[in-house]
């Protein structure tokens, strides 16, 4: 006896595995068992082969690899004894990994067993073939199976029938061989054979139109009679399920009738009576009866139209909906969804019951019901349906709210008869479940509001009331804040009051209160707070009396740690403080938002890049500064055609406020050529904080006219200069493009090509500001054309002495820069002396790309730090 396999019995192994406390322990036991089984296999141990295989099946169920046992299955199948064969076939079905060679080896054994004198062994072989048979096996063994359909024992016949299904699914060409034997099975008396025979017919119809036609012609009447007999048959204990005679067979028969009746008027006619009879006579107080009814309904929905029957069927489903069994309500909703396509009128009649299901205790049923309601809603019933749904929203549990809210919003949007109703319903939804609402929803609410000019006042007042009642729903607050910003005056003076409205008294300071509270609330996110800030700016102009108070609020946020808020606070503070003259035009009402554009965007279509004001020759891409600001930019997305810009520079200014990404372009006409060849060079330089995609068009299209000293950029530059250092500190890491606008913009030096006589290259003014002038003198080392020696000399044009003077330079990767120490760090006033510093630049792309450099100069004036930055790209070519 084999020393390895004699060890444990199957039961002991299972016990050992169950006793394991950890997965590692279990793995250990399994590893030991597997080792013993492998040893037994290699010893060709016969006595314990089927015990080992049984163990392997258990091990396989637990998820361990057992491929080494596959050949053992074949050996067991080939052995003469019944127990061995049984375990062998079971192992084959469970362990096999579809390796064709194993299946090929087993085909012959199965063939022999199909012809075995022992009908149980035949049954085992049929079972294995029916479960795992491949196309090759199907071809090889089809004749045997066909023969077995006429076997004397019904247990073999029924297995052969199901085996035939596997065969025709694997090889549809074989279907015609099975049509006649299958039809013969339909006249069987044995229940099991009949049920499998009917199933074989159903599958034959699926794979072969020939079979379908044949059964339609020859078998429809027989099947109808069979169904009728069954429905009328007296009690038959053998196949009775809770008082219903053989529901499984009835269901199979109905399913076959459905296949035959579909798209065939004659066959449908022939079965109308029996369908009606089953639909009316079947007991519906037990699951079995309902299963039959359910199948009958499915059949009625599929066969050719018979109005009366369909109404009957949908009424059955309606009854299902009030059944106490969850399963039945569940299937009824599924079926109603399909029935809607066939006869929506009849389904509509069950509206009330369906609405009840939205309140079901079972979440899966609620979900289905909401989907169905969504499909049921049309223009005529939208009002009552929405009312019901919104009422239910109040009582619904949190997990379900998201789904429900989305559906309500979508219904309201799709079918709203008038805008005021739309606004009312959306306000209800937002007040109830504002946190579950997606961004598109409140965006489109705003779009609709701007378009309904007669409802502006109504909308802002309703929103004011809603926020007073429930100020916690973030999206509601956003919409309210936006509207108060836009239409705050209408809130206060009660303009455009509709007859249905209660009069409302709101003071200017009440309106500001709402926005301020929301702004200061910690539960709201950046978007909401930024929207509040904008609304405050707008109100500061609408309500002159609150202007000072608003400015105070804004000033508090100049030190906000959130860049977006800080930046906006600084900008808005400047506007209120120093630019009263442009403020009214800046904060004018938003132009009406285009519904078509908006809905296009909602559908995922990317709108064409919004072009900027036509007055300016530059076409600046309207970039989005940061993803977090995206919804805002979206809302404020002014296509400047509509912007009532006071002047072209004002237009630019607005865009700056809105986060338009103005790439820092310092192009001069003199370097245009250099730029053409060096766009990517510029990109390199600009890559910090500037989305490269945006800078391409702006660089190539830039014209000098934008950068004269009166340009809005400089305006901003000066405006914010007092606070510039602090901005600088907090943003160096992730510097936003906006900052470039605020402080870092180089004023363009005039193209001064100094005619020098000594060097081969003329010296040039590389950088000039109000206080500083930087001149470059070039020279080349002989025999090294790639390297340029530059002598930089700085002069101080201002009246003050500059101390702690530091010059820094950066170049793109294709250049190498070496900076020598400067001659000093103090610059006397009034151009009374200079600092010189030598630079050595090596251009690895000499002849292809021109030099380019970004510079940064830091110094102290009167103990104050000043930082100047710029970019030099007017180098002579060929350096």
């Amino acid at each position, binding site marked *: 006896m084999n020393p390895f396999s004699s060890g444990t019995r199957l039961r002991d192994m299972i016990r050992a595995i169950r006793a394991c406390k950890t997965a590692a322990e279990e793995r250990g036991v399994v590893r030991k068992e597997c080792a013993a089984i492998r040893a037994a296999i290699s010893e060709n141990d016969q006595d314990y082969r089927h015990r080992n295989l049984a163990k392997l099946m258990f091990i396989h169920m637990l998820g361990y690899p057992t491929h080494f046992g596959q050949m053992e299955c074949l050996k067991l199948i080939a052995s003469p004894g019944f127990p061995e064969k049984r375990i062998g076939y079971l192992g084959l079905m469970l362990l096999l990994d579809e390796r064709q060679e194993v299946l090929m080896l087993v085909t012959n054994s199965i063939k022999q067993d199909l012809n075995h004198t022992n009908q149980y062994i035949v049954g085992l072989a049929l079972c294995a073939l029916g479960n795992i048979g491949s196309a090759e096996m199907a071809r090889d063994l089809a004749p045997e199976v066909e023969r077995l359909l006429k076997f004397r024992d019904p247990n073999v016949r029924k297995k052969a029938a199901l085996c035939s299904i596997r065969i025709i699914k694997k090889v549809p060409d074989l279907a015609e061989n099975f049509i006649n034997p299958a039809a013969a099975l339909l006249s069987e008396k044995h*229940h099991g054979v009949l049920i499998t025979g009917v199933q074989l017919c159903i599958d034959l119809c699926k794979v072969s139109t020939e079979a379908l036609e044949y059964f339609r012609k020859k078998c429809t009447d027989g099947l109808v009679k069979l169904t009728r007999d069954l429905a009328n048959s007296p009690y038959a204990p053998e196949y009775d399920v809770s008082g219903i005679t053989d529901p499984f067979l009835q269901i*199979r028969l109905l399913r076959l009738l459905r296949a035959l009746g579909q798209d065939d008027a004659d066959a449908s006619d022939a079965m109308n009576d029996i369908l009606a009879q089953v639909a009316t006579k079947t007991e519906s107080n037990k699951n079995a009866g309902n299963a039959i009814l359910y199948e009958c309904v499915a059949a009625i929905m599929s066969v050719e139209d018979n109005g009366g029957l369909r109404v009957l069927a949908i009424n059955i489903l309606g009854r299902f909906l009030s059944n106490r069994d969850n399963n039945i309500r569940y299937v009824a909703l599924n079926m109603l969804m399909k029935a809607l396509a066939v006869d929506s009128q009849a389904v509509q009649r069950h509206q009330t019951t369906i609405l009840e299901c939205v309140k079901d205790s079972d979440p899966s049923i609620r979900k289905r019901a909401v989907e169905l309601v969504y499909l049921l809603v049309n223009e005529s019933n939208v009002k009552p349906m929405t009312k019901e749904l919104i009422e239910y929203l109040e009582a619904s549990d949190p997990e379900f709210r998201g789904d429900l809210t989305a559906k309500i919003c979508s219904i309201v949007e799709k079918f709203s008869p008038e805008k005021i109703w739309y606004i009312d319903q959306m306000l209800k939804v937002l007040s109830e479940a504002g946190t579950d609402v997606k961004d598109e929803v409140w965006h489109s609410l705003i779009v609709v509001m701007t378009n309904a000019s007669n409802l502006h006042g109504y909308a802002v007042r309703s929103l004011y009331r809603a926020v007073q009642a429930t100020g916690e729903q973030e999206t509601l607050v956003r919409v309210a804040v936006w509207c108060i910003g836009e239409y705050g005056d209408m809130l206060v003076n009660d303009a455009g009051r509709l007859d249905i409205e209660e009069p409302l008294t709101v003071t200017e300071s009440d309106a500001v209160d709402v926005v301020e509270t929301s702004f200061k609330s910690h539960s709201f996110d950046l978007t909401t707070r930024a929207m509040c800030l904008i609304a405050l700016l707008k109100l500061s102009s609408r309500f002159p009396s609150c202007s000072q108070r608003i400015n105070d609020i804004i000033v508090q946020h100049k030190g906000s740690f959130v860049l977006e808020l800080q930046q906006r606070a600084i900008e808005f503070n400047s506007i209120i403080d120093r630019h009263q003259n442009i403020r009214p035009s800046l904060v004018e009402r938003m132009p009406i938002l285009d519904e078509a554009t908006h809905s296009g965007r909602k559908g995922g279509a990317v709108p064409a890049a919004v072009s900027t004001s036509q007055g300016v020759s530059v076409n600046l891409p309207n970039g989005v500064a940061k993803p977090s600001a995206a919804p805002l930019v979206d809302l404020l997305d002014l296509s400047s055609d509509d912007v009532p810009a006071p002047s072209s520079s004002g237009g630019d200014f607005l865009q700056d406020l809105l986060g338009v990404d103005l790439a820092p372009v310092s192009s001069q006409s003199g370097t245009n050529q250099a730029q053409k060849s060096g766009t990517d060079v510029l990109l390199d330089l600009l890559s910090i904080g500037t989305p490269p995609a945006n800078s391409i068009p702006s660089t190539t299209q830039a014209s000098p006219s934008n950068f004269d000293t009166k340009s809005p950029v400089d305006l901003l530059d000066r405006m914010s200069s007092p606070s510039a250092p602090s901005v600088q500190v907090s943003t160096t890491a992730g510097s936003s493009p906006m900052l470039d606008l605020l402080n870092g913009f180089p004023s363009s030096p005039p193209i001064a090509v100094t005619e020098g006589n000594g060097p081969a290259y003329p010296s040039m003014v590389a950088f000039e500001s109000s206080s500083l002038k930087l001149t470059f003198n070039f020279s080349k080392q002989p025999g090294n054309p790639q390297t340029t020696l530059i002598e930089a000399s700085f002069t101080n044009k201002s009246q003050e002495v500059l101390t702690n003077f530091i010059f820094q330079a950066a170049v793109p990767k294709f250049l190498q820069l070496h900076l020598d120490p400067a001659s000093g760090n103090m610059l006397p006033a009034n151009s009374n002396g200079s600092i010189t510093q030598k630079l050595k630049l090596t251009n690895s792309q000499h002849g292809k790309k021109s030099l380019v450099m970004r510079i940064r100069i830091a110094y102290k004036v009167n103990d104050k730090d000043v930082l100047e930055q710029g970019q030099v790209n007017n180098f002579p070519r060929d350096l």
Partner: protein
Amino acid sequence: MIKGVILMNDKGKPRLVKFYDYHPAEKQQELIRRLYAVLSSRAENVSNFVKVDSLFGSDARLVYKTYATLHILFIFDSSENELAMLDLMQVFVETMDKCFSNVRELDIVFNFNKVHAILDEIILGGQVLETSSSEVVKAVEEISKMERAANSIMAVPSITGWQSR
């Protein structure tokens, strides 16, 4: 067709796994794990049907029932009647009950290959073979008679000792 029958306990341990579509062993384990996740996240008093298209392809549904510590799961496609699947599950459970006289999880653990024999008499190749539990019991008894008659080594797991643990 029926795509699979799985018995697992309330801790997710598989007790009987039968797929009628081919899945590699690792996939089978993955499916069992995910099905268990589906079941354990279901509330009580909800319908017994779950859509499982994400696991088994379009139209796949799952019907489950829980008997004491044991979940029984049938996975099937749209060509089967959901309510009838519930009844079929009942037939399966009744048959096991008859064979093990009041079946418990442990009976299934130690006699899993006998449970396979029962299942193979009810479902073949994903189709319903027999729906009368008495017919199934009869067939299974014939098989155990055959095994006794074969008089093979008694240490071998035969279908004879139904009650053995």
